[in-house]
């Protein structure tokens, strides 16, 4: 054989061997993130930066995972939860998510927070077949665009669904309503506004004024003053926490006392307490909730468990902050799905479990069920209306089902 031919033969054999080895490795490769003793998941959250008040959520989630690990984990595997700080900046979310997938080999991207951050990584994760689960945002995309993005699923009730409930309530129970709306001037606010209009139906004309604010404006007194001047007696407050507190205080200060609806994201008793201390009169305000009522049931077994989990594994977490209840409820949901994802768990198994949910989550309000089907991918569809009395939210009425 000539040297050239010999060389070519060796090269070809070498290539063949490499391909065979790769195939062998691939076929016996375990699911990324799963070993005999651990399951590794990860997510990106705003731990610093402008959205950092939501940074308590991954701490509460991790607390629950530690609790489960202390009891042997899921099918003998402990959950390792890698939390990365993306500062709500998609330019950080993308590389950090790439790192989670390629370097940390996570089983799933869990609980990532924020609409824009999740939109930025959705294509990548779906292409790579990495589950993007229980994302912490109330946009409808995660439930409605599942055909194009089958690996993605949300958790909390979507924003339009929530404000639809408010709209329906106003239509049925507040006949003389003149509604003033304060909304964030972007998709977040628009989501709530659209839902409100849908819920109002033919009573849509009751909206007398809509004022908008930009997230860089921390003072919304200009908008609230105009709303009062419009003669509104119902206040639809679709703002994030800082502006919500400001709006409530300003309203009281200028002598405006409408029936106020506060969106769930901003209605944590933590924020209501701050508003009260700053002089806002929040008695009688209304919101929609879906997590377990730890505030009015201090001695129930669930509340005691919740508080003990936080005390032991997230001592800096304030048990009164609804975001912490949210975190524990979300983590419970993941663990539940992981249990049904196979042993050893697979990614496809996880998605199957999450799209076939039909269970009661102890950390959700009694009557609010976790329900999904492969074509109905909103895990939480139900909410309960609550009215602020004294220092806490008091649920009233019955659980609104199928607000869709």
């Amino acid at each position, binding site marked *: 054989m000539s040297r050239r031919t010999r060389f070519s033969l060796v090269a070809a054999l070498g290539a063949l061997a490499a391909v065979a080895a790769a195939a062998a490795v691939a076929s016996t490769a375990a699911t990324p993130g799963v070993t005999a003793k651990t399951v590794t998941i990860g997510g990106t959250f705003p*731990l*610093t*930066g*402008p959205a*950092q*008040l939501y*940074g*308590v959520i991954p701490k509460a989630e991790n607390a629950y995972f530690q609790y489960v690990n202390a009891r042997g984990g899921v099918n003998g595997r402990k959950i390792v939860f890698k939390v990365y700080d993306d500062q709500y900046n998609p330019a950080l979310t993308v590389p950090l998510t790439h790192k989670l997938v390629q370097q940390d080999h996570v089983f799933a991207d869990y609980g990532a927070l924020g609409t824009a951050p999740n939109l930025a990584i959705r294509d990548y994760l779906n292409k790579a077949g990495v589950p993007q689960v229980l994302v912490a945002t109330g946009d409808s995309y995660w439930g409605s665009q599942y055909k194009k993005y089958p690996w993605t699923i949300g958790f909390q009730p979507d924003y339009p669904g929530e404000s639809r409930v408010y709209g329906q309530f106003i239509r049925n129970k507040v006949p003389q309503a003149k509604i003033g709306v304060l909304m964030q*001037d972007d998709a977040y606010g628009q989501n709530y506004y659209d839902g409100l209009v849908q819920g109002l139906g033919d009573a849509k004309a009751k909206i007398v004024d809509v004022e*908008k*604010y*930009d997230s*860089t*404006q*921390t*003072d*919304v*007194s*200009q*908008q609230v*003053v*105009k709303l009062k*001047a419009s003669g509104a007696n119902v206040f639809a407050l679709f703002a994030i*926490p*800082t502006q919500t*507190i*400001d709006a*409530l*205080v*300003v309203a009281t*200060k*200028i*002598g405006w006392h409408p029936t106020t609806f506060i969106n769930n994201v901003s209605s944590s008793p*933590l*924020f209501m*307490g*701050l*508003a009260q*201390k*700053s*002089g*806002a009169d929040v008695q009688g305000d209304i919101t929609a909730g879906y997590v377990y009522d730890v505030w009015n049931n201090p001695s129930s077994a669930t509340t005691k468990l919740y508080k003990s989990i936080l005390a032991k594994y997230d001592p*800096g977490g*304030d048990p009164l*902050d609804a975001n912490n209840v949210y975190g524990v409820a979300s983590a419970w949901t993941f663990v539940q799905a992981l249990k049904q994802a196979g042993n050893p768990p697979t990614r496809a198994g996880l998605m199957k479990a999450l799209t076939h949910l039909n269970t009661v989550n102890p950390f959700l309000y009694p009557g609010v069920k976790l329900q999904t089907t492969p074509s109905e991918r909103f895990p939480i569809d139900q909410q309960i209306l609550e009215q602020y009395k004294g220092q806490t939210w008091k649920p009233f009425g019955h659980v609104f089902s199928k607000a869709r």
Partner: protein
Amino acid sequence: MLGVAAIRRPRTPSGWIVPGLLAACCVFLLVGSLSSSLFAQQTVSGLANGGIYASLGVALVLIYRATQVINFSQGALATFTTYVAWQLMSWGLGYWPAFVLTLGIAFVGGIAVELVAIRPVERRGNVLTVVIASIGVLILVEGAVGWIWGSEVKFMPSAFPARAIHVGGVAFSLQDLGTIGVSIAAVVVLWALFQFTKVGLAMRAAALRPEAARLVGVRVSWMLSLGWGLAAVLGAVAGMMAAASPSVLLQPSMMDGVLIYAFAAAVLGGLESAAGAVVGGLAIGALLNLLGSYVSWVTPQLLLPAAFVLMLVVLLVKPSGLFGRTQVRRV
């Protein structure tokens, strides 16, 4: 040197432009407020925000006058000292004892930051290096606040009662009035310091002509540290008032939004003028509210650019700010 300080330049005809402009603005606001209670309320609420910008703006001016440095970390330092106050109160101290103790801690802290982070840099670097160092301090201090105290929003009580007084359909919050009052008081105190005391004169000398000042016995480096310490005290006051305001609250990033407008206020008023910072701050606060209320094509997102465009227009006419002195550069 004292003789130099006492010279006053005669006012040229063009020197009446700025006071005239301000007078016109005041008349406009007054007339508008008297004819519409909505206008009045918007102006009053806007001025309240302006008070917060002004209070931090004065601290920025002080640092610039004393050290010729744009201190990006002023807001973060203010935040840190405000958290210290909160911590003292949560350990049981009353509001006023905690307030006073915090001012002392701020003074020491400001000097410490200058000694540790700025002095070593200033010695061998140039202005831009010091600016970067101040950015480093900003990142560090804001991060430290979140690390030590967590990212949850907290409550800071106010020095003033939370009542509002109603005059002719317009609500005046005592807290807001107090904030504006304190800012004005700070300007007066600073003016007195620089105009009448030897220390103030020494600080001015150290900033403008360090070599000459050394020759007459001024300890220049101590003057710079003093500048940082005093600015930190002003920042602490600004922070405590801001945190008590419902539009800011006590959270690690609380001063981020304020800093932007505080800079705008300081630049608008002329970086060397504390009074200018107050006028600038109040003007910006009122302007933002009125623009947002009455000019419909200024959407909420465009408010910040609009405010800056107006600031730019003023600066194009008078590049050293409303009350700044035109810089004469020698060859």
